[in-house]
């Protein structure tokens, strides 16, 4: 009798939770042979600090940037959720992983507050032309930073990884990326701790406040592969979670 009651209770609970689980996680999708699930828009853009920052950046991106406006036009709606769903999974995963990493790396307020606005969200291919991005232009955000943000990155201010509850240092050296603002000026490059990967990389042009922000998942020669900054490729999503916690996309099942 007790056993039957237990089974019934489990069944009722499971049946009750199922719609909730459905509502929070989208349908599984396959990317380069791996299956993932991505949280729903309502979860990703919720009322948490990260959710509010994502909402601020994404709505401003749709209203103000050339690419965002083009996406609104193509989606036939200015509703952020509709436009979000019209984006490719790799574009969405790039936005989610970069914003999550910046949220986790905290001084007092997370480096997300260093972003004034996003200009472009890059997956594997250009939204405007449909062509593959060059490897150093794929899987990243092109954004404008606040003056405080630029100063903080230049000075390499102490950070803390809130996911691991550990200090996070700055590290390394790399060539500057092309200045996407094409306005000249001084460019500099900074990377966060690479041990372990992934690190966050900022390429900044001070005069225009343009920043190219991506995550590097590979070291050595594998760093030069196209998928170096692709959070959905290989074991990158696992590496991301191990360093920066859940970003809203998980391997499935």
């Amino acid at each position, binding site marked *: 009798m007790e056993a039957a009651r237990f089974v019934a209770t489990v069944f009722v609970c499971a049946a009750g939770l199922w719609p909730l689980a459905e509502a929070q996680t989208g349908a599984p999708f396959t990317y380069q042979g791996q299956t993932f699930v991505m949280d729903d828009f309502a979860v990703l853009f919720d009322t948490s600090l990260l959710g509010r920052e994502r909402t601020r950046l994404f709505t401003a991106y749709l209203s103000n940037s050339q690419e965002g406006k083009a996406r609104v036009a193509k989606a036939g709606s200015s509703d952020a959720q509709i436009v979000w769903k019209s984006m490719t999974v790799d574009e969405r995963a790039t936005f989610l992983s970069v914003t999550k990493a910046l949220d986790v790396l905290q001084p007092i307020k997370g480096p997300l507050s260093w972003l004034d606005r996003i200009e472009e969200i890059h997956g594997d291919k250009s939204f405007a032309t449909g062509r593959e991005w*060059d*490897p*150093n232009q794929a899987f990243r955000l092109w954004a404008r930073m606040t003056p405080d943000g630029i100063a903080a990155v230049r000075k390499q201010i102490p950070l803390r990884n809130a996911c691991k509850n550990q200090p996070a240092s*700055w*590290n*390394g*050296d*790399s*060539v*500057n*990326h*092309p200045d996407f603002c094409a306005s000249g000026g*001084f*460019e*500099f490059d*900074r*990377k966060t701790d690479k*041990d*372990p990967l992934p690190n966050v990389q900022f390429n900044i042009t001070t005069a225009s406040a343009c920043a190219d922000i991506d995550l*590097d998942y*590979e*070291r*050595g*020669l*594998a*760093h*030069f*592969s*196209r998928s170096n900054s692709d959070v959905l490729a*290989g074991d990158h999503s696992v590496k991301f979670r191990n360093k920066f916690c859940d970003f809203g996309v998980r391997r499935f099942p």
Partner: protein
Amino acid sequence: MCRVMIAAFVVLTAVYGDAQQPAALARADQFFASLERALRDSPDVLPYVADSTPVLATILRKEPRTAKAWQLEPALAITLTDRELRDYVVTRANLALVCGLEVMRRFPLPTITRQQVEELNPRQIYAPAAAAAGLDQDCVTLDSRPQQRAWITDRPQLNTWLQMPFSASQAKTTFARRGSEQGNAQIESNLAYLRSVAGSAQFDTEVAAVAGLPPDAVVVGSVINLMAYARLDRPSPQLLLVTPLSW
């Protein structure tokens, strides 16, 4: 009148300076291209940085990102002699070059995977002893094993590198023998890919500042799988330092 003349002088100086910059960068690109050809045939950076040793050491001590690029703790870097710093960089750079070219002769970099590098394991060909010192199979970075930082933090660790039984001349001989076997077209393709993505030479005002040089005296560009810093305020450009290429 005086103010007008001063303003005109400032404007003319700026215009002249702007006109000089593209020429300087073009000169740097030529230098890096010739250096790439030379290092491809003979992967040893020592002859090119030998005369720059004091500046190389100054940059590594004063610009932490360059020491960190070779996974050398900046606090340790400031305690090392010029010669120690140079020898450490040369050993690491030469290993990165020979192993990098070995990988590049076999696999296209745009689609390369960690597994391919690990299976080829060029470290085993050129510097098996470096495995014990934590060098990855591709000879570019130190690996980060659990509970162990991929970082040179003390002198005993550094001494392991300075005493590494890696011979640049032996590696060159091995490389030259293997270089004649196959893969030249693949290397050409990979080098073109790296050059196209890494882009042209750029001024590095931060490195120039720590080296005590004018802002437009130091340029950085890609050379095979390395980033090369060179000074331009000499009749011929001079290599100052190399770090692993990254973007």
